[in-house]
């Protein structure tokens, strides 16, 4: 059986931070790739 629960405010905030941090990492890697290509 599965239970369904809505995210808490804390979870929403934590998830937003996690995604922002991951996106920043991806941007850095993209810049590194660009520099390597030059």
């Amino acid at each position, binding site marked *: 059986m599965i239970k*369904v629960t809505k*995210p808490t*405010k804390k979870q*929403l*905030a934590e*998830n*937003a931070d996690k*995604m922002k*941090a991951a996106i920043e990492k991806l941007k850095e890697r*993209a810049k590194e790739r660009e520099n390597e290509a030059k």
Partner: protein
Amino acid sequence: MNINEIVGRLKAGGLDASSTNRSAAVYVTEARSGRAEPGWFGFRIVCDSEATERRVRAVLSRWYDIDANGNVWRLKSKNRVPLMAIKRGGVPPTPPTPTSDYLYFEAAQANSTVSMMSTMSMAPDLEYSTDGETWQEWQHTTAEGTHTFDTLTLTNIGDRVYLRGDNPNGLCEVPEGVQQPNFSNFTLTGSINGGGNIMSLLDTSMVLTEVPQYGFVLLFSFLGEGQGSSVLLTPPAMDTITAIGDFGCYSMYGECTSLTAAADMPSLNVIGENALKQAYSGCSSLTAAADMPIVSSFGESSIASMYEGMSDITVLCEADMQTQTVTSLKFEFPELPVNVGTKTLDTLLGVVMYIVYGV
């Protein structure tokens, strides 16, 4: 070279060999390589035991070169096309039927949970079901530009939740002129076996076989600080996928430290640029690489660092040393070999560095 010649030589060496009787100690069959060019294996020799395998090698080595992996090469062949593979195991496996189940997560531990976060401008369209028949919308809440889907708790071991949706452009978008992708990521806790066809996330009818560019970027990847995620034990099936667009599976399973096997892709033909780059980077429990036997097109950096961090990996290459080109290439983990087709690269060392280190 024909199959009767091989059987004849094995019989002459005192072996119970046959191309028609699967129960023979040595069963010789024509292998399917799925490609029109000289195949990876022309024939497959299946032995019923280690002792039989040793005898087969001894008999065939009078005429052929046999490497440590049981691949049989024509002696003094200019092109080094492998003729046969010697395998252990009584009956050749029947080809698996493509996975038609919807993607699912099954609890290996009670109270395992499944959720997803996404920064796409519109949250992915997804439904869930406990039986694969009755579906409900998987709802989400949006805050600070991130959509968080409701947490689905699998109460008991063996509980399953199926997922499907219509997201033909993938679960990630890269707005024009912007460097960052807006991607989706599963949040899993507990211990979970994945299964079913991953393409049900993009197409509820699972007719779609091409992963769009950026489609599954970072989908199961561990985000955040720390040692990775030990939740996912097995990946969902990727066996109907025929092509992966640029960045399609980039870092898809990054640092899933309990994943023991990579998803086979027996239908995969085309890998776009960076499409499988770092796909299994940091998956420290892998003992089997993905089988990709019919890939004919490798985009730039398509498999760079695909298994980054693996210390126990062998890359086997056949090369023409005069022209410095690699004519065949495969990964080998301790348990299973994988065939990635043929690729021309500049140097042998370059091949190893490229696949394991991405340089």
